[in-house]
């Protein structure tokens, strides 16, 4: 958009520009960038007292994050997020397909049905899952009537995965739907007419064409899942801690802010890496289709 002939040069209306640009920019600087910059600086510091932190330029906090315990937690978090994304894809793809080809009315209703839990408070949704899964919860009580269980459903890795899928599913269904909705249907019809089955059409036509949208969906599911705090905290057990829980502990109980800051920034860098990766893939595809 920038550089198009119709935009105004900022010098031509300094007053309105200063107001429209200046106020939000100042806000962003003061209440977003400065706080992050302090955390960044702390990640190179060391605690010298109960509340004093000396920024010494040390890399020891980052060195600590590469010990086996923390590498394990990073690996586990990435594993949880990846598993969640794959499950959401598998569960969400058929739903997006149905929404795409539904009648107008059914489409609106289905989209609303998928969106409504997303508007519901995250804590309430997590609490609702707790009530389902605990050993005296609804699922185990029902199983008990059948003479099964009680199964250990809560406070373990299974509960965390289930919770992450439950919470993040709408994030993936919506971009998947908008990607599928843009497809040229005549291509699908042609593929089916020429004798390809449904599976083959989906594999060889739908997925390659909708790939940019699918990747966007994967990204916006993976990133929040990776940084999840509440789900592993409430649904997880002692060994289903994710990065965010470890960060929280450093800032509250353990009171080791420099180390927590280093962990926070590694999580940030991981996030940016994912975004950059998606950007590179998207650009490469654009180039390939232009050539």
């Amino acid at each position: 958009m920038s550089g198009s002939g119709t935009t105004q040069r900022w010098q031509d209306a300094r007053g309105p520009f200063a107001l429209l640009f200046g106020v939000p920019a100042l806000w962003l600087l003061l209440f977003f960038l400065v706080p992050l910059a302090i955390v960044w600086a702390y990640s190179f510091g060391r605690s010298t007292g109960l509340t004093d932190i000396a920024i010494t330029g040390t890399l020891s906090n980052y060195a600590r994050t590469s010990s086996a315990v923390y590498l394990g937690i990073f690996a586990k978090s990435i594993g949880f997020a990846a598993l969640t994304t794959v499950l959401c894809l598998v569960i969400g793809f058929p739903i997006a397909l149905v929404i795409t080809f539904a009648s107008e009315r059914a489409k609106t209703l289905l989209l609303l049905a998928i969106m409504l839990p997303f508007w519901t408070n995250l804590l309430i949704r997590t609490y609702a899952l707790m009530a389902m899964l605990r050993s005296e919860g609804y699922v185990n009580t029902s199983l008990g009537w059948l003479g099964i269980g009680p199964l250990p459903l809560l406070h373990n890795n299974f509960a965390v995965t289930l919770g992450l899928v439950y919470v993040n599913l709408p994030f993936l269904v919506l971009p998947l739907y908008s990607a599928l909705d843009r497809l040229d249907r005549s291509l699908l019809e042609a593929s089916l007419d020429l004798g390809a089955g449904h599976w083959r059409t989906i594999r060889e036509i739908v997925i390659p064409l909708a790939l940019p949208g699918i990747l966007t969906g994967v990204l916006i599911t993976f990133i929040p899942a990776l940084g999840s705090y509440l789900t592993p905290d409430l649904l997880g057990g002692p060994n289903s801690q994710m990065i965010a829980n470890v960060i929280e502990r450093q800032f509250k109980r353990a009171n080791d802010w420099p180390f927590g800051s280093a962990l926070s920034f590694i999580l940030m860098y991981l996030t940016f890496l994912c975004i950059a990766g998606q950007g590179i893939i998207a650009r490469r595809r654009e180039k390939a289709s232009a050539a």
Partner: protein
Amino acid sequence: MRAREPKGPLDYARSTPLRLWVGLVLVFLYAPLACLVAFSFNESKRNIVWTGFTTDWYGKVFDDGDLITAFVNSLTIAALSTLVSLVLGAMVAVALWRFRFPFKPAFEGLVALPIVVPEICMGVSMLVFFSRILPWPTDLPWPLDLGSIVIAHISFSFPFVAIIVRARLASFNRELEEGAKDLGAGEFRAFFDVLVPHMRPALIAGALLAFTLSLDDFVITFFTAGPDTVTFPVKVYSMVRFSVTPEVNAASTLLMALTVVLTIIGLRIQGRDVAEMGNG
């Protein structure tokens, strides 16, 4: 019965296995919430076996002073945060739409940053900021004591508003604004009489999103809030940690009802705006 059209090759919406799948997933999404609502009306405190209908738990919620305070705090924070987010978000959108200036792509990226930064990172940065740089006095009268939380909420909400409004402005005919100025309208007249009416649906959608984001936030508030300021999610979190009780069910049901009402109102208003645009 009306004869149905034969199924077309792309009629995935009418394929039985796919329909079954959608049904199952909807059960997965809604069963926990439905149970939560249903058991908020259950007499038994043990919360599993249905023993009879009661609204006592709602009475308990309304008698629980802490919970009500937390609820009022949450609504106040959401309202204040929405108001400022709308103004800041609209300013960003108009600045990006109207002007070209150096480092514009960098600024655009910067504005989107609060959306992608993990909540936990933003939470700890706010904790550090409000404990070391700008210690928020704890003895301020209500609602000033909520200031730090409101500021944190604005920082993560207004970029969403900016994106929504920006998308809407892309469809605006710049000549309308220029025409208004040619006809003698000043900057402010042109802005409020021409640009704002065009942005209205996006402003409503943005306000709704900002309000929900604020009401929904737990992590960032958890880190920003002092020991004496409690919001609804923070309060529910402390209750949930101990046990699953019908009182929490009732409080959650009330908040869900509020969210559903807000969503419906938002959709209605947006629907009306779309209809008006169609007629105009």
